């Protein structure tokens, strides 16, 4: 998988604590608590990891 490119940062509507980094087949979501979630372009969650406070991206 290609690493997310910093110039491909998007805001996530309704989730100000989360940023989205776009690549061809995936979106990588990064929370300000360090949580990570990688979703395929079809929306399937391929990987997720909670942040330092135990919350996942979808809980932010």
């Amino acid at each position, binding site marked *: 998988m290609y*690493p997310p490119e910093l110039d491909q940062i998007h805001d996530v509507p309704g989730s100000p604590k989360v940023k989205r980094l776009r690549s*061809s087949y995936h979106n990588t979501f990064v929370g300000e608590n360090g949580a990570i979630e990688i979703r395929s372009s079809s929306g399937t969650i391929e990987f997720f990891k909670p942040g330092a406070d135990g919350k996942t991206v979808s809980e932010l």
Partner: protein
Amino acid sequence: MNPLEELKREIESKIPGVKAVIDAPRDPRAGGFLDLHLDDHGAVVEWSPRERRFGVSSLPGTGFGGADEAYDDVASTVLRLVEILKEGQHTDPKELLLNELRDKLGISQEELAKTLDLRQPTLSKMERRRDVLISTLRKIVEGLGGKLEIAARFPRALVQLVQFTEPGRTARKSARRKPSRLKADR
């Protein structure tokens, strides 16, 4: 007009019913993506302002790399997207061995050897080597009708290294003075 917007307009005019959505980042200099769907088939186009290219991907399932194919202009990108979306085709992964590339282009070893003024067994050996001179690789690629490019990828940049692929382009003398000289001037 933004190249992705131009591509979107063209593809919508060529394929009625296509769903085309631009996904552009907040930095307008960074390019972006065009997501395309027609019935159950899809494709993704990435516009790279740095490389001035459209990257096209349409693999079954989930791909993990960058773009599979690259096109320099809107017209050729649209032609390929029409094939992909209307005929249900998939993109070809961009990694190929030299002999696979030659086969894909429909050029026989004998034909390429003749173009390069080589014996066919010599070309056969070259295609199986794990290392060749850059000048040799350039001749092979040009013999296939392409242009060799060598790039160095860094976390935030892609740099074309031209001195190995463009004859006559050699190292330029740096305009900066040596540190020792600067010290002596003080």
